[in-house]
């Protein structure tokens, strides 16, 4: 809380007159506030109505955070006007955006001037007038959660719930919801999924579903589970709830309950009860809501587009992964003949080192390999032996030592005789030999 002091505030209030219609606009009022730490936004609105503009419409009842009537969007966040002090808004003015606004204002000398308060009706509800919204769609959806308790077993005595019972602790303060609509207004998904019953209704359903005495469990679960999957875990509802409830947690809890049930095999789907069609009433708001949704063609198009893009991405990623994983295994079956050199260039009675060059493909990766091979040609005939230069011990390169008449490996002192057999050192087996062929006076080896 900042220190109390006299300040002048610019208050911007959304105005909409149903007699005129249109999109609505903001009216600006300047107000002297004596002590912003004990002046609520509701006080501000009441003063504007009394002192400056009696036509201003807003809704309130209890003034003590109990009824949830005065929910509105105050400086970008859903809050109860009666719970929010002017000084609370002041504390949030220190963002870049606000600083810019303040410096742009004329009265930069007085720190408090220019820090405006913007008040707007809740999102996702038809606006009746100024800050008053029609809560009808909210309560219609709330009813989907079957918001009352029906005991599974009839009891004569009131139930005794231990304060430390698991269920009681799980449900916690989620029963404190006052149905102000802040969560629905803050939820971006409410706009995109017309069947989504919203955070408040799901929170209510959670408080009853988590209760093992609930007699309507399956029916309720049937009604609300689909809605739970519209939640994208943005936690907007949790951030704004004036009662500090987390509807996101409630939604996830319902999903968890459903998952546990189906995993344990006890899940019995309640008889499919066709949800009651939303009766088109004569009142405007319902049609207003309907008009506001994307038309069916567009929705179908978006659905198909999403599905199509998903399929293409899956195919591309799957294809890439499959080629990379299976490709090399398939290619191994094909042995290739690699041309080494002309037969004439291989000296008789000696061991010649020839570099074998070839292209290797591994998945999408191509590389040029060059490996030395050792060609031994004892006599002037076609009896040749082609040794791999890879030491059979740990894969170092062996070379021919003319003086010792041995193939030697520099790494660990392995030595092989003229026929590739181990003479000394750690190699476990003779040098590997390549299968070769001679075609058109050229020497080829087979690459496995």
């Amino acid at each position, binding site marked *: 809380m900042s220190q109390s002091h006299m300040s002048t505030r610019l208050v911007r209030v*959304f105005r*909409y007159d*149903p*007699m005129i*219609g*249109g*999109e609505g606009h*903001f009216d600006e009022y300047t107000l002297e506030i004596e002590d912003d730490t004990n002046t609520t936004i509701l006080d501000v609105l009441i003063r504007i109505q009394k002192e400056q503009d009696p036509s201003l419409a807003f809704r309130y009842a209890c003034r003590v955070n109990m009824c949830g009537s005065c929910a509105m969007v105050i*400086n*970008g*966040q859903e809050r109860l006007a009666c719970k929010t002090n002017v000084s609370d808004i002041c504390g*949030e003015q220190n*963002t870049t*955006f606000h600083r810019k606004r303040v410096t742009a204002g004329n009265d930069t000398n007085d720190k408090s001037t220019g820090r405006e308060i*913007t008040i*707007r*009706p*809740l*999102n*996702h*509800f*038809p*606006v*009746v007038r100024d800050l008053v*919204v*029609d809560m*009808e769609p909210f309560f219609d959806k709330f009813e989907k959660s079957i918001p009352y308790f029906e005991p599974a077993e009839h009891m004569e005595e009131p139930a005794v719930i231990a304060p430390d019972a698991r269920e009681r602790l799980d449900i916690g303060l989620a029963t404190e919801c006052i149905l102000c609509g802040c969560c629905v207004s803050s939820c*971006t998904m409410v*706009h995109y999924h017309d069947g989504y019953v919203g955070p408040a209704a799901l929170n209510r359903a959670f408080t009853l579903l988590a209760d093992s005495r609930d007699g309507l469990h399956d029916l309720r679960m049937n009604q609300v589970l689909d809605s739970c999957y519209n939640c*994208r*875990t*943005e*936690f*907007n509802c*949790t*951030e704004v709830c004036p009662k500090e409830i*987390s509807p*996101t*947690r409630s939604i*996830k*809890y319902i*999903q*968890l309950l459903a998952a546990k049930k189906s995993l344990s095999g006890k899940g019995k789907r309640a008889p499919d009860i066709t949800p009651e069609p939303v009766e088109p*009433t*004569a*009142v*405007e*708001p319902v049609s*207003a*809501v309907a*008009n*506001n949704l994307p038309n069916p063609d567009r929705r179908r198009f978006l659905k198909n587009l999403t599905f199509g893009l998903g399929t293409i*991405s899956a195919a*591309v*990623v799957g294809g*890439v992964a499959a080629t*990379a994983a299976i490709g090399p295994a398939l290619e191994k079956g094909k042995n290739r003949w690699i041309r080494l050199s002309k037969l004439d260039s291989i000296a008789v009675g000696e061991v010649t080192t020839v570099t074998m060059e070839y292209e290797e493909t591994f*998945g*999408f*990766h191509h590389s040029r390999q060059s490996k030395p091979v050792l060609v031994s040609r004892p006599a002037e005939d076609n009896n040749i032996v082609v040794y791999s230069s890879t030491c059979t011990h740990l894969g170092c390169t062996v070379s021919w030592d003319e003086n010792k008449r041995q193939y030697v490996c520099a790494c660990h002192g392995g030595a092989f005789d003229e026929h590739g057999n181990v003479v000394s050192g750690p190699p476990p087996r003779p040098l590997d030999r390549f299968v070769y062929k001679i075609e058109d006076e050229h020497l080829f080896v087979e690459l496995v």
Partner: protein
Amino acid sequence: MDSDNKLKYRNPLHWGELDPHRKAGTHIGMWAWIWQRISAIAIIFLIGLHMTLTYKPIIQLLLLITLVFHAALGLRVILLDFNLVNVRYRNALIAGLVGLGIAMIVIIWIRIY
């Protein structure tokens, strides 16, 4: 309101409509959600690049960063979904897990190169 009411209601305001403060007040959880989706799409492209241009350190690094970031935010949602972490730590989890991820990136990168 009775059904004879001919007053014209204004269409519902949308999230952020006519609201100069909305952008500045967007909660961190929403940014986490949006960026996880963006990183998901980035991963698809980066994997394609990684498979075609193998062993290019810059692509490896980008893919590693994007994957770790995506995984950190995904783990956060899993931890909260299964009620393994109290919901009041939802924002601390973003910083914690992304920080852990960055530490892992540094370790992995130093070990590779």
